[in-house]
């Protein structure tokens, strides 16, 4: 019973302690087992927390028994529990896959460090999702960012180094903007506890420092979540990172940044402040639409599949932000569901591309000619995940599009419905690029695909199954997302 009350702390502590353990163990096999055990344990904890939250409401946990707002508080509510499950779930699937994948992509001497960095990245992302303290968010953000720079730099292509460097520069600017915003909010309110900050801000709302903080926060978080036009770091980072890292980061890192945005917009500043005083709705709407259309169009012209789907990620982030711009329960439900659905879908895509890389040596369009005949299962998987990106009924992506369209109709914006459908055609175009190359070209004779271990195939199949299951049964995605959206729209606590 005593353990159960400390689950919120253990959620972060388990991967945090497992990280140095992998360094001490050193042997890649032992490090691998530790990392997988830690991520599965974290998944179990997050599921237990989610059930607890669904059953009996939000959990507040005072670190070291110092009560909030003076002490640091961990808070698990409908939204954060969903993020915890997403991060730990994706990590639990990607880590078993990673072993076979990094054997082909990362020098053996660095394998144990790969697991260390991976665990630290999980720690950071979980910390952001669970903490109720503004400065804590920054610290965890930097833990996850620094470890993800290292993970990206582990890619075997030398361009991975430059990609990691660029991400480091952009990411640090973004994180520093977030600290500036938190600093200004602290100066105005004298508290760092998010809930307390939200309450106290009500008295100083609309003052210039608060508006400046809002601006800094928006730009900083937008850099982190790769909102168009602040997305430049993303394509190279995803394209040249080791496949397992691309899959994990694409599925979780940008999503957690969106979570930070939601948390600050709706619980700290409050909806009336963000959307009432400034034309944020229109700004986000324009940036989201520009992101969707520009990134999808660029994706069509890519020759490397990893880059193609990286640009697709930027356009999908456009849909996520589009949902935020409605500032309605339906819009936010679409956002939160898409965090989850796109995380699962894009995770599956990059795991599949990892299999392609592992067996054919690269994922350029020139290399995957006739892949449909050489590797029928993998190709079919990419097509299935592609259908989810387009938003075909029966896949997870459809659920989001459905709620986005509902939200647009709620506000009577017919033209937006038209744009959402039109943007799906663009997604169809870039997915078709793969279909055309893989199914309508003769296979290359000079490439003999190597066999792929079951440890890579199984996690991928699991995520693909999730894409279909979450497309058909929305009980476990839409219902919690709607609860979270209602909580956010409820305003500052």
């Amino acid at each position, binding site marked *: 019973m005593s353990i159960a009350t400390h689950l919120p702390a253990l959620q972060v502590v388990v991967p945090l302690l497992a990280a140095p353990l992998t360094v001490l163990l050193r042997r890649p096999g032992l490090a691998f087992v530790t990392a997988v055990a830690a991520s599965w344990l974290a998944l179990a904890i997050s599921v237990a927390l989610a059930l607890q939250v669904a059953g009996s409401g939000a959990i507040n946990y005072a670190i070291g028994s110092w009560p909030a707002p003076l002490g640091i508080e961990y808070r698990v509510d409908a939204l954060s529990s969903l993020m915890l499950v997403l991060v730990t779930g994706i990590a639990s699937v990607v880590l078993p896959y990673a072993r076979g994948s990094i054997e082909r992509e990362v020098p053996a001497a660095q394998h144990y460090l790969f697991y260390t960095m991976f665990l630290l990245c999980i720690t950071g992302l979980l910390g952001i999702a669970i903490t109720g303290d503004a400065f804590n968010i920054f*610290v965890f953000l930097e833990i996850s960012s620094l470890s993800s720079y290292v993970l990206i730099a582990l890619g075997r292509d*030398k361009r991975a180094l*430059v990609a990691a460097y660029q991400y*480091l*520069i952009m990411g640090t*600017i973004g994180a520093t903007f977030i600290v500036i915003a938190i*600093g200004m909010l602290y100066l105005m309110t004298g508290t760092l506890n998010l809930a307390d900050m939200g309450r106290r801000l009500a008295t100083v709302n609309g003052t210039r420092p608060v508006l400046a903080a809002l601006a800094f926060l928006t730009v900083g978080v937008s850099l982190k979540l790769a909102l168009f036009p602040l997305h430049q770091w993303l394509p190279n980072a995803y394209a040249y990172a080791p496949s397992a890292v691309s899959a994990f980061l694409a599925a979780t890192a940008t999503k957690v940044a969106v979570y930070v945005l939601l948390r600050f917009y709706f619980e700290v500043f409050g909806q009336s402040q963000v959307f009432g005083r400034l034309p944020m709705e229109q700004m986000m709407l324009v940036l989201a639409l520009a992101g969707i259309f520009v990134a999808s169009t660029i994706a069509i012209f890519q020759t490397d599949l990893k880059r193609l789907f990286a640009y697709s990620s930027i356009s999908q982030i456009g849909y996520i932000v589009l949902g935020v711009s409605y500032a309605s329960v339906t819009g936010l439900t679409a956002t939160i569901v898409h965090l989850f659905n796109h995380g699962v879908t894009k995770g599956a895509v990059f795991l599949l591309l990892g299999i392609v890389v592992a067996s054919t040596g690269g994922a350029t369009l020139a290399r995957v000619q006739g892949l449909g005949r050489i590797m029928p299962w993998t190709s079919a998987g990419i097509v299935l995940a592609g259908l989810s990106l387009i938003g075909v009924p029966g896949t997870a992506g459809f659920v989001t599009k459905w709620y986005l369209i509902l939200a647009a109709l709620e506000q009577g914006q017919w033209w937006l419905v038209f744009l959402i459908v039109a943007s799906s055609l663009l997604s169809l175009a870039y997915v078709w690029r793969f279909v055309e190359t893989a199914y309508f070209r003769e296979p290359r004779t000079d490439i003999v695909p190597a066999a792929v271990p079951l440890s890579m195939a199984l996690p991928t199949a699991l995520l693909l199954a999730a894409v279909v299951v979450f497309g058909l049964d929305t009980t476990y995605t839409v219902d919690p997302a709607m609860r979270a959206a209602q909580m956010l729209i409820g305003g500052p606590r």
Partner: protein
Amino acid sequence: MTGPEGLPGVIGHFSYFVTVFLLVAGLFIVIARGNLIKKLIGLGIFQTSVYLLYVAPGKLIGGTAPIISESYKVYSNPLPHVLILTAIVVGVATLALGLALVVRIREAYGTIEEDEILLQEASPASGAD
């Protein structure tokens, strides 16, 4: 416009002006310079300016550390200092990682100038298939 203690604006808000100057100068270096090391130096200045943003308002002239005693009435706020201690550690780690990456980039490309690296990446001989 008057600052705290009734000083005229510029002097009263002296620390803020310094902060903003360093902030903009650092960001400018990051954007304008092509040398990867100089970019990191700019990034360092940019981050350091934020330390000032936190620490300066926490200090009250004549204030002491928060000691509960009859003889002390005016306290400085220690919390920003503690926060910035954490931020400094993060900054050092970022700088170290950035420099490590630059070393690796130098080994791989033979240069630390951004335009030369981009030129090498654009040329077909860079090993892309």
